């Protein structure tokens, strides 16, 4: 991998194509999870990969390629999310109310989780995905995203609080008033 990075940083397009080929699935999976949108995830990965190619000469330590690339990818996701907010329908969504508990259990939980996840900021989502999907420790996430450790910790803490609230709301008894909602 490091050899490919060094070759690519000296302008070897084939080396970079090999790097892109080796990482595109993982990058897409991350972007797809952060953005919760197939098309925008593709746009983010494409933007991040081409940005990586253009700026690769600035990467001094090839061993840091992966973390550096995560940063580019997450930034590309931030940009895509901004476009999403600015131009897509449903910018205006009054926060989702808890769904009515039902007998479909897991499906209902996942639905709740997805709806709650979409309410997180893209910055919070990025930390959740890097931590729970990639399994990166918070210190690594902080380094990759160039943010203080405390910021990574608070983003995760806040995100989990929102997600936990959604799950807990589903667990409590449902009132007749909520059945109308």
């Amino acid at each position, binding site marked *: 991998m490091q050899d490919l990075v060094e070759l690519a940083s000296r302008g070897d397009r084939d080396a970079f194509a090999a790097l892109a080929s080796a990482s595109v699935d993982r990058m897409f*999976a991350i972007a797809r999870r952060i953005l919760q949108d197939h098309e925008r995830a593709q746009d983010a990965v494409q933007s991040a990969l081409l940005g990586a190619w*253009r700026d690769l*000469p600035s990467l001094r330590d090839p061993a840091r390629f992966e973390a550096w690339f995560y940063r580019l990818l997450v930034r590309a996701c931030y940009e895509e999310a901004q476009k999403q907010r600015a131009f897509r329908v449903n910018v*205006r969504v009054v926060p989702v109310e808890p769904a009515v508990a039902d007998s479909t259990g897991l499906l209902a939980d996942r639905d709740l989780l997805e709806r709650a996840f979409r309410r997180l*900021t893209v910055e919070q989502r990025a930390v959740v995905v890097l931590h*729970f999907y990639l399994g990166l420790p918070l210190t690594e996430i902080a380094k990759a995203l160039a943010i203080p450790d405390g910021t990574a910790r608070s983003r995760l803490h*806040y995100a989990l609080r929102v*997600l*936990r609230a959604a799950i807990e709301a589903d667990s409590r008894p449902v009132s007749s008033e909520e059945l*109308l909602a």
Partner: protein
Amino acid sequence: MTTDDRLRGLLTDWLDDQPTRAPDQLLHSVITDLQRTPQRARWRVALRRLPMFGSNTLRFFVAVGVVALAAVIGLGVWAGRPSVSPGGPAPTASPPATQQPLPTQAATLGPTLSPTPTPRVLTLNEEATEAGTYVTEDPFPVRVTFTLPEGWQGFMGGPYGVFVGRPGDTVEVVFSIFDKVYADPCDHDQGLLDPLPGSSVDDLATALASLPSVDVTAPTPTTLGGYRGQQLTLTAPDSFLDCTLAPGEYFRVWELPLGATLDMQRGQRNRLLILDVDGQRLVIDMAETPASSAQGKADAQAIIDSISIEPGN
């Protein structure tokens, strides 16, 4: 199992179960673009990363550099030129600025002993994630300054909408600009009002007050931040049972120019302040549902109370 364990398990499973393979055309597209994308030279990358070197700033510094260079060259020419009157007085420089009396510390600190906090800007790229005072900047056309309480967040969706909410609650404050109102939120098939409301505060207030299927209070005159307008409250019905809703089962009331919509929930209440800010119609909307917390509602009112407005961005 604790809620936390359950959450982590659910979250991991949910993330793991989402697609992991990139579409084939993605890599193909990247490799195609790669062939025509040059790499940046090392020094250009470094320069681009310095935040102060935005294009306008760079142009400014280049211009200053050119002027400075011209001045140096000019001085060199001046110093090297033959004197027209060898016995005459040498040219004198302007008195240095330091000859002016320096302000004393007391004079400097005097007026700033009780500083007014500078609001943080809210733009497309800068969100409000912490409590504090914020001001909406370009592209939103009105400068709205407001104080965000603890636990609230806000973002600018574009030139027509700024959204402030309390995650985990069902209360929001929105600053928006729009004129598209749906004819009947309970019958989406009717589409938008035709004609759309005119451009005045009264035009929009009258159109909203006439909406069917929504309980609307009569518009009353109001003032906020020194600007006059109309105030009214919309309340959605408790049931949408007999409605033809918008796709996605939304009770749709109005739409911003770029497509964002106001979709009310059952029993949702929206208090609107429609203001004329030097010819720009601004709608300030405080939304809550029957599930909103008392704290959320109090916070929303505090945001409204904190607002000050300036025209033009």
